[in-house]
């Protein structure tokens, strides 16, 4: 039976296998048949209308989407008021009042955008915070590109942040000195978020390592208490402590900078959250990686810095980004230290009685700015995640 079967099978197989010196060459490859779901129509059928419930859901959603989209376009573009005339007593918002409910009043943005973006920064000098925003965005872009992931990146960061400081404060190179309390708007948000996360991140790693140090019970308890206490209270109360009550904790006369204090509070808070995320990553890493590093004679810090953390952090990119996004938005709580961050500046801009009825427009613009930053962050992290898994997986 064996002989006949073999013969039948090689006949049936169709592709004879030519062999040279006992090593068979690769058989001729055929392309796969066209899948059922090819072409736009096929795509729609498999992805949108695969079953009756699926078709109903698709249709209902499409109709709803279309209705919302037209309504929005009508309001935001077709019937919108883009600017209003300026009179001696201030802007005349009659046109906006008439359009209320039908069209948007973007005039509030053209009137207030500089205040929203830069807060109470000296009006004539507002090109400086504008440059700072651009610098920050440039810094993010550069840091995001892998070809810049070298030691020089640290140098770039230091230089950029120095330039940011010089631009914001001034007082040198013929720039007017602008005290910190009149900073505001987007630069404040970016400064708090960037410094906050950049400093909280290393701290969170230390805390996470401390929480896992089984042979250091006191340190572990300390880190646990820190994380649980900070996580358990709202950020606003921590900021309240740091901003208004801090002088009560210090000996009289010792009164460090207010922005700095808020910054420290943000860092301490972010670090507690990030530490939990990092700890998750550390827990998932197989023990074998620790042992392999030990067996090579690596010291604790080498092992941690080059073997453990790079892997652990990759595992937790999605929750890390969740936390980053959360904190980028939470910087809006710094009103309590008397700074107008982006969100507060927007709200204050609307305290102007003339513009008070047009909060929707302002809120939309604010939401769009926040969304732009957070969305890019989320997208980038997803790319990063996939890039890592591509390089380390088959």
């Amino acid at each position: 039976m064996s002989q006949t079967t073999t013969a039948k099978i090689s006949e049936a197989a169709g592709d004879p296998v030519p062999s040279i010196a006992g090593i068979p060459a690769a058989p001729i490859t055929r392309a796969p048949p066209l899948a059922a779901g090819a072409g736009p129509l096929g795509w729609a059928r498999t992805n949108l209308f695969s079953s009756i419930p699926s078709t109903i859901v698709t249709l209902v959603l499409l109709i709803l989407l279309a209705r919302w989209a037209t309504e929005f376009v009508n309001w935001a573009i077709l019937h919108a008021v883009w600017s209003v005339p300026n009179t001696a007593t201030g802007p005349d918002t009659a046109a906006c009042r008439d359009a209320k409910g039908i069209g948007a009043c973007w005039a509030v943005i053209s009137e207030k955008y500089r205040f929203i973006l830069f807060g109470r920064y000296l009006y004539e000098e507002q090109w400086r915070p504008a440059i700072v925003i651009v610098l920050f965005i440039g810094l993010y872009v550069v840091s995001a590109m892998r070809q810049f992931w070298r030691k020089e990146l640290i140098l770039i960061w230091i230089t950029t942040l120095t330039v940011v400081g010089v631009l914001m404060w001034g007082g040198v190179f013929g720039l007017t000195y602008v005290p910190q309390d009149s900073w505001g708007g987007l630069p404040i948000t970016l400064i708090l978020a960037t410094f906050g996360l950049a400093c909280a991140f290393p701290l969170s790693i230390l805390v996470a390592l401390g929480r896992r140090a089984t042979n250091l019970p006191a340190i572990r308890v300390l880190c646990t208490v820190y994380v649980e206490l900070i996580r358990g209270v709202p950020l606003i109360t921590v900021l309240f402590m740091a901003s208004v009550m801090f002088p009560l904790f210090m000996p009289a006369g010792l009164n460090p900078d207010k922005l700095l204090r808020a910054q420290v509070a943000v860092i301490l808070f972010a670090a507690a959250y990030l530490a939990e995320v990092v700890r998750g990553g550390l827990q998932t890493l197989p023990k074998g990686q620790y042992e392999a590093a030990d067996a090579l004679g690596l010291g604790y810090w080498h092992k941690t810095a080059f073997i453990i953390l790079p892997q652990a952090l990759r595992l937790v990119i999605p929750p890390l980004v969740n936390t980053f996004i959360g904190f980028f938005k939470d910087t809006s709580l710094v009103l309590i230290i008397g700074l107008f961050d982006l969100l507060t500046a927007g709200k204050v801009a609307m305290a102007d009685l003339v513009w008070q009825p047009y909060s929707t427009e302002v809120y939309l613009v604010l939401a769009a700015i926040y969304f732009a930053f957070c969305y890019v962050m989320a997208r980038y992290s997803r790319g990063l995640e996939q890039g890592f898994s591509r390089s380390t997986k088959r």
Partner: protein
Amino acid sequence: DPSWAQGSGSKTIDDIRARGQLVCGVTAGAAGFSLPDSRGVMRGIDADICRAVAAATLGEADKVRYVPTTVTNRFTALQSGEIDILVRSTTWTLSREANLGLEFAGVYFFDGTGFMVNKSLGVKSSKELNGATICIQPGTSTELAVADYFREHGMKFKPILIQDPAETQNTFISGRCDAYSMDISALASFRFQQGPKKDDYVLLPEVISKEPVGVMVRKGDEKFFDLVRWSMIALLQGEESGVTQANVDQMLDSKDPTIRRMLGLEGDLGKAMGVDNKWAYKILKSVGNFGEIWERNIAPLGISRGINALWTKGGLHYPPPMR
């Protein structure tokens, strides 16, 4: 200035001079009181009072750092020394003065709590508000005043307490609340700003509480307290004596002994308080008198002077003699 070198005998004044800035707690945004304009410059009656005190203390009205405060942190900020004075529509009450280690240096605005309703409700008096839903800003003395008023008249109400004034107003406009209770000045300006629609809203006649709005300082620094109090009096005296920002320089030639003492041409009123003799001159020169401040900030909101006029015109502002 050499007179500063010996020290003023006041820790606060010394600190302000060492810093070169008066730190002034204001609201984050209340039109007419303190609100950054489109260019970020702080404007309003609160801001002007800060500038007046700065002019008296430092000689320059612009050396002010405005710290926006919230209803939550305003007293703590003053207590802890984060700010030097609090000029933030704060009503002068006994408990605030007794418990907080703070005191009121003077009243610059006499206000009262009132109610505004939508005309369509047909309500004519606040006594008809039994069962109404009322929008109030929390943490203010309005809150207690309304509660007291309804208790006194045996009525009930449902409060809606929203922190942000702009949101409160939106909520009122939407009809979520039947009435909006606030300081009468704020209600008047709210109505004024509705433009052609202002007749949709009715301000009810009853004033249910006294709300003297004042400037707060820390207790225990009498010199600074005096300086703040008399800076405010100088603003009123300027108005009473007809000294304005425009004519203050000509007034240096005035024969009126009151004016001459105030402007530092006679006597040592300034020195007695540990500042330059020209303190009141500098205030009036850089900020103007109280009437000018009012015209500049409050009048555009559609608020009439009423009891905030000088005593000579039937109001409550009565500057004690500067002697």
